[in-house]
């Protein structure tokens, strides 16, 4: 059960004078249960790639295999693929439409033509998993706060019980409180439900905190694909393509340059504090 992206290219405006090569020869293996962060500046092709993973866009060349099957094969059910690879777009609350939150979350499973009971069970389950307060289940989605709307919208995708969940900047526009709560809930989906999570983000700090692996996109290509420590070790190259490492990386490198023998691998606050304390305690002894 996994996804393999095999040499895909995506070109649009092909028949014009200046065709756009949005994706160039992308190869990725997405094993089960991994938490993957995708970073890249606006226009680097990350959103385009995500839309390929659930079949909303079709690659110009190359193949994508989901659980061993080529999704571009004749007769492959793309509609079904979309429900198994859930995609939460940026500002997903802009797609809420039903009269109540619950009805809106039911929309996905209903489209799967499930029994009414199963539909409602899944909706209930999804809302619970994103930590949506029960007393608001039957209010209008348009009366909610920004953070609650976002949760309701994520539940709308989760209710289809996807195996892979892709989130395109799920914390954009939220305040720190809303951001932490949503990311914590998403992390739980990975640890408790063993769901594969792909998180597209602009925040290096968030990525460093949560993911197992980072894919860096630049100019339609995979620029780096490795663990956070390895990727942020290349912070000078990241800067060249308009990205940055978490602040912690800069601090650790600064300390190292000042002659404090810390390892520069730390990417989160607690790792950095541990490392600095280790070095300080060692020198005291």
């Amino acid at each position, binding site marked *: 059960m996994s996804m393999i992206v095999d040499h895909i290219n995506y070109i649009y405006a092909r028949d014009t004078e200046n065709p756009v090569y949005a994706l160039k020869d992308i190869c990725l293996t997405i094993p089960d249960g991994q938490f993957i962060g995708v970073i890249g500046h606006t226009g680097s092709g990350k959103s385009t790639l995500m839309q390929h993973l659930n079949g909303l866009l079709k690659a110009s060349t190359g193949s994508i295999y989901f659980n061993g099957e080529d999704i571009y094969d004749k007769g492959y059910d793309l509609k079904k693929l979309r429900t198994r690879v859930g995609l939460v777009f940026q500002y997903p609350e802009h*797609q809420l439409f039903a009269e109540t939150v619950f009805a809106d979350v039911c*929309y996905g499973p209903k489209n799967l033509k499930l029994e009414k009971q199963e539909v409602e069970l899944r909706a209930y389950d999804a809302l619970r998993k994103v930590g949506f307060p029960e007393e608001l289940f039957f209010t209008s989605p348009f009366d909610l706060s920004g953070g609650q709307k976002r949760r309701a919208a994520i539940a709308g995708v989760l209710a289809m019980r996807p195996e892979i969940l892709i989130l395109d900047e799920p914390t954009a526009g939220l305040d720190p409180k809303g951001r932490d709560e949503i990311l914590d809930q998403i992390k739980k989906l990975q640890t408790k439900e063993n769901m594969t999570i792909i998180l597209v983000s602009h925040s290096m700090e968030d990525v460093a905190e949560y993911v197992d692996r980072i894919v860096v996109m630049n100019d339609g290509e995979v620029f780096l694909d490795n663990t956070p420590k390895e990727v942020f070790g290349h912070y000078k190259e990241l800067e060249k393509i308009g990205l940055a490492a978490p602040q912690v990386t800069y601090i650790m490198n600064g300390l190292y340059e000042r002659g404090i023998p810390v390892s520069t691998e730390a990417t989160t606050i607690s790792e950095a504090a541990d490392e600095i304390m280790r070095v300080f305690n060692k020198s005291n002894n």
Partner: protein
Amino acid sequence: MLREITLGQYYQTESVIHRLDPRVKLLGTILFFISLFCFKNPIGYAIARAFLAAVIILSHVPFTYMIKGMRGIVILMLITVLINLFVTQGDVVVSFWKLHITKQGIIMAAQLALRISMLIIGSSIMTLTTTPNHLTDGMEKGLRFLKAIKVPVHEIAMMMSIALRFIPILLEETDKIMKAQLARGADLESGNLFKRVKAMVPILVPLFISAFRRANELATAMEARCYHGGEGRTKMKPLKYASRDIVAYIIMLVYMGGSIFAGRLNIFRFM
């Protein structure tokens, strides 16, 4: 997909046509439309085509760019042409099953195709070479006389210009909402008409809500920048006729005269 529609979207470049006063272009477009219905003979068409070609060349807008924007209308044009091809009575040239193509039908259809395409290209030249703000300024000033009969000319012009700015944004948004609902397993293609209309609800509701939200925010932003109607407003780009505008008016008059003359020619020959 949707954002590829370029019909009428301003094309930024430097040209004589771009610099013309929008009132000239507005009147010019109207006169060109009238001229298209003035004549029925090849000479008239030749004059009109030459005129149009000259304007296109002067406008510096690539012809391919214009044609690309017309894709959506081609189907409409084909239908009109086909109806005319088959419906027109006269000398049968080809016939199969119950359909007859007549000589008159062919001529009629060809004329119609020419006319419609010239009409569309003619009007798109105006919008391609005039910024919406300029265009609405032209309308506002050119139609100022309507204020006397209580037509809110400034407000209409402002509404038009804002609508034009938001069309591409809303098209992109529609595209996004559609994709998002598809990702939730929406089925927009199968079923009968009733089912399909029902399937559009999850797209239309968010779209309307978004449009209202945008309208609200825009209104606040405009007020914050001291917008309070057309009273006491000055213009960054006030409309003043330059000598090239006078020249353009003269060329238009000559063209119009030529067309009418060509039209007459037609009448003389067949009477």
